[in-house]
């Protein structure tokens, strides 16, 4: 029982740390997202040859 309660505390602690990690990662994602697609209008140069 003691073990269990202690584990619960560890999980809670981990969650708190995790939220912080999430926030840091979120900052990155927002920047990657805007970069994720290239600024070049895709497809305009490969003109279709159907």
């Amino acid at each position, binding site marked *: 029982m003691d073990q269990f309660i202690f584990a619960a505390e560890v999980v809670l602690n981990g969650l708190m740390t995790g939220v912080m990690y999430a926030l840091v990662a979120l900052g990155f994602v927002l920047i990657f997202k805007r970069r994720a697609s290239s600024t070049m209008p895709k497809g305009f140069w490969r003109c279709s040859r*159907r």
Partner: protein
Amino acid sequence: MNAMTQDGYVTADGRQIGPVVMELKNITLRFGGVVAIKDISFDIRQGEIRAIIGPNGAGKSSMLNVISGFYHPQDGQVIFKGQPRPAMKPYQVARLGIARTFQNIALFDGMSVLDNIMTGRLNKMKAGFLSQAIWWGAAEREENENRAAVERIIDFLEIQNIRKTPVGRLPYGLKKRVELARALAAEPNLLLLDEPMAGMNVEEKEDMSRFILSVNDEFGTTICLIEHDMGVVMDLSDRVVVMDYGKKIGDGTPAEVRSNQAVIDAYLGVAHD
């Protein structure tokens, strides 16, 4: 066709076409050494379905990109509703009420069909940030209105059953239809369609033709479309511009264009490519 006047003309099927809304005057567009558009002029009238046809690489998409602000011509003028239009970014053109689709389909693959179409209405949303944040008053009303409008378009284009599907998973033909839906969501005055039927089977082409006609008919939307399939063009359009190697080689009703020798040559020339 009845006599064309300043104010417009009446089509063979009795639709009243209005005055010129978009005029392209001596447009020349170059990419380095490649001349994509050579000194082309033509106009688009209120309420008509205007087609641009021509072989691959003729400069049709480039022309549409000039109208929608994606490309900026080195020479010539774009005159919108009688006013020469300064060089504009695509988003500014969109805000003038000019919507478009792309030859190679540009959708938001990660979003659902519904969300994709909703983006077409972004410019219709005016609610301030705060009222959006607490989902109150103007924001709520606006969201509901926009949702209702989008649902109407979904019904109109018969895509109810894929409303929630992520667009990335849809087959090609349906993607094209969703792209049309998104453009319609903006309730444009001028709708630009770059090869809306390319790569479709006969049945899909018929559906798409029907949608294009009823958009024009029911909403009075002016449409400028690029199409490869001569038959489709003849059925749909009121007037046709023919391009070849960046030049305009024909302009007129489908019947006029079909009997134009330069056009016949150009088309026979590429039929075997």
